[in-house]
């Protein structure tokens, strides 16, 4: 049975995790993700789950390490400074090929920064966050409904590829309410995990220490073969008025919503603008960008950072077109008028 409710993005993520069979949540308070943990503290006891407020972010991510090794679906959430503290754990999870779902409700940085929304953790998320060669799969919802559906998807992807999936969102989407269709029954279930320490007849050892160079090299190469499959199969994007777009606006998450308004205004002025919104940030939807570059004269990267995703846009189109940056930082969102001004600027670029 499903019902339509008006809830915050943070609460939608928590509900989705429960619908995905997650019964282990470990967290530590930080704004603007607090409603997520607060909602879990109310709901988990009702579904015989574990809500545990750890003594720190480092403890919480290591509880994820343990729970995942034991084969259960588990989640932790935090906001920017807290995710930095979890970076070591993210690397260990990758080194052990453990599935996990980690939520980052981004706030302004660096340092303690502010509690206002930001997209300045793009590099951290898409490059893995911690030390060593590894990736995490990054999903970037742009509505409260997607906060729900992407979280459910995240658990399936994490199990399928035995890797961390991050929901990279921000204070806007975490705090805002929109109607969401939620399901009161479990939508997906934990996968079989014969590798878990609790399974199998012999001993299953989960470990990221390989003292022999050739053994460590092989483990890295195997992992990258897996990443290649992810890059082939999982890139997701959404297009808006993209088919004939001469000016392509690249934007994800909350800022993509604002960009959409600016594109409507640009179309009203006769400019063929369109939106290419990466839904997965890693793997980045490179093919969609390469295709858009065939028709586009210029790109505009709209982000609440000093210009991080813009590098992936330039790489994806091999720098064949100019890419302008439209950004606000420090907890400020760009206004449609600012994005429209960037589109007008990009429109001055000559036809190919």
């Amino acid at each position, binding site marked *: 049975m499903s019902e339509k409710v008006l809830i915050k993005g943070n609460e939608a993520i928590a509900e989705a995790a429960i619908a995905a069979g997650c019964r282990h949540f470990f967290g530590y308070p930080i704004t603007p993700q607090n409603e997520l943990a607060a909602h879990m503290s109310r709901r988990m006891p009702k579904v015989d789950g574990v809500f545990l407020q750890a003594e720190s972010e480092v403890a919480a991510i290591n509880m994820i390490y343990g729970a995942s090794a034991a084969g259960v679906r588990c989640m932790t959430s935090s906001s920017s400074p807290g995710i930095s503290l979890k970076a070591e754990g993210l690397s260990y999870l990758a080194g052990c090929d453990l599935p996990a779902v980690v939520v980052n409700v981004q706030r302004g940085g660096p340092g303690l920064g502010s509690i206002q929304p930001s997209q300045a953790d793009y590099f951290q998320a898409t490059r893995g966050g911690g030390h060593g060669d590894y990736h995490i799969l990054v999903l970037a919802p742009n509505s409260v409904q997607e906060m729900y559906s992407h979280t459910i998807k995240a658990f399936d992807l994490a199990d399928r590829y035995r890797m961390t999936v991050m929901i990279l969102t921000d204070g806007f989407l975490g705090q805002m309410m929109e109607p969401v269709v939620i399901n009161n029954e479990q939508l997906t279930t934990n996968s079989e995990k014969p590798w878990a320490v609790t399974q199998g007849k012999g001993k299953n050892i989960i470990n990221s220490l390989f003292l022999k160079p050739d053994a460590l090299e092989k483990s890295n190469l195997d992992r990258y073969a897996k990443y290649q499959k992810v890059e082939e199969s999982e890139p997701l994007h959404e297009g808006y008025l993209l088919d004939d777009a001469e000016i392509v606006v690249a934007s994800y998450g909350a800022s993509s919503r604002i960009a959409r*308004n600016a594109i409507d205004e640009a179309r009203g002025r006769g400019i063929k603008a369109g939106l290419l919104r990466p839904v997965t940030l890693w793997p980045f939807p490179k093919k969609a960008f390469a295709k858009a570059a065939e028709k586009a004269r210029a790109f505009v990267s709209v982000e609440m950072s000093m210009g991080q995703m813009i590098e992936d846009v330039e790489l994806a189109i091999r720098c064949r077109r100019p890419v302008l940056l439209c950004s606000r930082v420090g907890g400020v969102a760009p*206004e449609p008028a600012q994005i429209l001004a960037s589109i007008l600027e990009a429109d001055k670029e000559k036809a190919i």
Partner: protein
Amino acid sequence: METRVLIAGFGGQGILFFGKYIAYIGMEKEQQVSWLPSYGPEMRGGTAQCSVILSDTAIGSPVIPEADILVAMNLPSFLAFESRVKPGGTMFYDSYLITQAHRRGDLTYRGLPATKMAEENGLKGLTNMVMAGAALSVLPGVDEEVITAAMKKTIPERKKEMFESNMRAVMLGLAYPADGGQ
């Protein structure tokens, strides 16, 4: 058709609850809605604002650069947001708390002494819902059925004894004459 409602006042005045009620009004009318709070470290005493959009089509940005309807619950909000109303828009304010001269000629000003009205009717603390009632008068397609159904959704089950008083506050604001009875 998209209606952008910006509500502003002190923290503790029930700004976010007001916004939630307006959002449920939209949902009852089968509209798309978004509800975006300004959130700060303060819970009470600081500034609070809430942006609610009701739309017949998908909502892009939940941020409101220019409001169709602005509700100012205190003087700082009146002064700060008067310039952010769309020409032709409506500005509601609590005339019991705000005695500020109007600075624009292209708006409809709708002052009502909401705090006084709430107190005189035994509804102390429900100034927000008196203002909400007034704001409903300019939203299209809002009838008593929608008003009641939205209130039922807005009031959580554990506080259902608050339903009647909130409804009375809304009806009080809705019935207040647009010309202030003059």
